[in-house]
């Protein structure tokens, strides 16, 4: 379990990190190269050692030939006793000449010749005579000069390659003898082993160093890419001033330059669009402000006329009533325009204070009651006993609720409208549910858009400005709250406002359901 998890983590790391992958590949490839190199070296060193040893053995064997010849000089005339005596010396003499310490000697009476005097065949102690096969003896006796053969001997409990060299001698008295010298390669074998061990260790260390260097190099190479990635992230998160440092003239510098180029043009475009949008917002704001002075004059005049309309001709009177009514509508529209442009300019300064939501809802209900009565709509309030404390800008909450209730009554088709209040430990909520015409999916998406109307063909009765829900949504968001809606065509709509109890809390759930069926 743990193992597989670690493997998985390592695999993930491997897949996700370009650098780790580069290092792993470099080490694997260099490792392969080192193994091939080590193998070739080991074989060629082994061969070298072996052939040198063989050459040396041949030279020594030639020297041995003279040694043996010298030993037997002058023993020709004497009897077989003397011969026997010299024979005894041969092995000792041959074991001690030359530089090779590891030499074994066998001086054998030729097997093809009768041995009537029963002359001895002296050998070194511990020599394995089975090495000298009848085949080889036949080869030696039938040829002139040295015969060489590679054999395996046991040395120090290990099998070691050795060179077996044979040559024939004719001793005084016509005795045919064969001299066999065994040069084992124990020392060479040890040297080779040592070299191989060194090669492995050296290869391993080299591999580590290659790994480390490739890590450094890839890090150096990957760094500009990583920096570009980080900078893109920063750029995407909105910090348009972020740029890369350009160093040198290599491909990394090209990357940095291009990246900066891209960031520049991006910033230019975004700034231009920002400015355009700000200009438009400013324009709306300026226009609205400029309209206020003439509007005030017109309103004062219309009010005065309205208050003094009695006694005027009927047409004048009706005109004055219309003028007066439309001035009020103009006033509302302008107020909403100003409010939304204030939100656009982020110039809104809410006043958060602790209020009882029940109280605010009560005020709104009382204010809307006359309108509900005029539409024959029954307002049903489901309000918890006890205070529902929350930190809000009460003026804005009232504005939202007034808006929702007005809409519900307008679109409620005379059926009851239910207003619910509830709280949990983090948030408070009000829902306004009607049983009226409702909305379809497309309308639900657009309902908070500016100047959007549920049904353009429907007769306007309250003369709302078309900005009500857009402002309500901004008001709710100002409280870090949510204004949500659900609806079904023909069944009604439910708007739910959820506000955190403290205006710095962001994770909360609404204590009320969002459903038209709860009506």
């Amino acid at each position, binding site marked *: 379990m743990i193992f597989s998890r670690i493997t998985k983590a390592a695999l993930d790391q491997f897949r996700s990190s370009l650098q780790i992958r580069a290092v792993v590949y470099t080490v694997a490839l260099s490792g392969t190269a080192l193994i091939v190199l080590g193998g070739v070296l080991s074989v060629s060193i082994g061969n070298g050692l072996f052939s040198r040893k063989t050459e040396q053995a041949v030279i020594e064997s030639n020297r041995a030939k003279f040694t043996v010849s010298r030993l037997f000089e002058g023993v020709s005339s004497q009897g077989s006793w003397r011969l026997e005596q010299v024979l005894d010396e041969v092995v000792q003499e041959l074991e001690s000449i030359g530089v090779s310490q590891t030499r074994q000697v066998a001086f054998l009476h030729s097997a093809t010749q009768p041995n009537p005097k029963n002359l001895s065949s002296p050998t070194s102690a511990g020599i394995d005579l089975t090495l000298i096969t009848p085949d080889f003896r036949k080869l030696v006796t039938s040829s002139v000069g040295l015969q060489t053969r590679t054999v395996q001997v046991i040395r120090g409990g290990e099998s070691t390659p050795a060179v077996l060299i044979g040559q024939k001698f004719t001793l005084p008295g016509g005795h045919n003898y064969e001299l066999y010298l065994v040069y084992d390669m124990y020392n060479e074998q040890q040297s080779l082993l040592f070299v191989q061990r060194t090669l492995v260790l050296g290869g391993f260390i080299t591999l580590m160093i290659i790994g480390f260097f490739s890590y450094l190099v890839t890090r150096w190479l990957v760094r500009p890419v990583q920096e570009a990635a980080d900078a893109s992230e920063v750029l995407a998160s909105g910090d348009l001033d972020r740029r890369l440092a350009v160093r040198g003239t290599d491909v990394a510098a090209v990357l940095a330059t291009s990246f900066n180029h891209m960031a520049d043009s991006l910033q230019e475009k975004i700034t231009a669009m920002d400015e355009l949008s700000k200009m438009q917002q400013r324009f709306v704001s300026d226009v609205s402000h400029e309209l206020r002075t003439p509007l005030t*004059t017109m309103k004062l005049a219309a*009010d*005065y006329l309205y208050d003094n309309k009695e006694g005027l001709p009927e047409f004048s009177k009706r005109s004055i009533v219309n003028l007066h009514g439309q001035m009020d509508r103009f006033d509302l529209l*302008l107020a909403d325009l100003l409010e939304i442009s*204030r939100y656009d300019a982020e110039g809104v300064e809410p006043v958060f204070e602790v209020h009882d939501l029940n109280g605010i809802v009560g005020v709104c209900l009382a204010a809307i009651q006359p309108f509900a009565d005029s539409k024959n709509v029954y307002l049903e309030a489901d309000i918890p006993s006890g205070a529902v404390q929350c930190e809000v800008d009460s003026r804005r909450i009232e504005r939202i609720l007034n808006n929702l209730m007005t809409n519900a009554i307008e679109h409620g088709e005379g059926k009851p409208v239910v207003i619910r209040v509830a709280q949990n430990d983090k948030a408070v909520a009000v829902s306004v549910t009607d049983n009226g015409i409702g909305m379809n999916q497309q309308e639900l998406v657009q309902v908070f858009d500016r100047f959007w109307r549920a049904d353009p063909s429907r007769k306007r009765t309250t003369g709302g400005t078309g900005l009500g829900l857009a402002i309500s949504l901004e008001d709710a968001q100002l409280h870090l709250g949510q204004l949500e809606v659900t609806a079904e065509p023909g069944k009604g709509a439910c708007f739910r406002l959820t506000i955190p109890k403290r205006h710095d809390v962001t994770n909360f759930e609404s204590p009320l359901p969002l459903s038209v069926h709860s009506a």
Partner: protein
Amino acid sequence: MFKILIVEDDDALREQLEIGLMASGFEVCHASTGTEAVPAFEKNKPDLILLDLMLPGKNGIEICTEIRKNSGVPIIMLTARTDDTDMIRGLEAGADDYVTKPYKIEVLVSRIKARLRPLKEVLHPIIKIGSIEMDTLSHEVRKGDKKIALTPLEFKLLLTLASHPNEVFSREMLLEQVWEYTYKADTRLVNVHVQRLRSKIEDDQEDPKLVLTVRGWGYKAGPE
């Protein structure tokens, strides 16, 4: 009959205002530029000033500051911009209240009347708060031997708080009792005027001892 000075540069609006106010029973005089405002005030000695903030010559805030140097005459700002910084600066300069355009004449008249209404009779003619002594008959305020000049609004604000020492007044309550707003109004009116009041009566404005803030609730008059 109360005389009202209208400082407004838009001729049509000024005339319509004059019609509305005269119809409501006020006597009116006017100034149409910023520079004319103070001389018109000194000449006509109005009971109240309606002051537009955006004026040619001298802006409303400067005029306000100048008049407040030696007069507590009620000043109501008429603002086209709900640009809050201008409005707050006007209040800080000494304006008592503000009305944003477009306004109804009834609203404006009720604001004017609230500012002109005499103080209610109080049980004790002398009210003390800390080292401050308020004479409710002569409207004189003394701190020890020193006379302090409060505007009628500041006097009413301090009197309201000091009549019920240690009782907490929410900003809404103060708006209702001092400014006579019957419906929701801008609670910053209270904040700004409490600051102005403190600057006149407290020893250390940063560490008030007389008019105390009750966080999340409002204000109260300090311990006797």
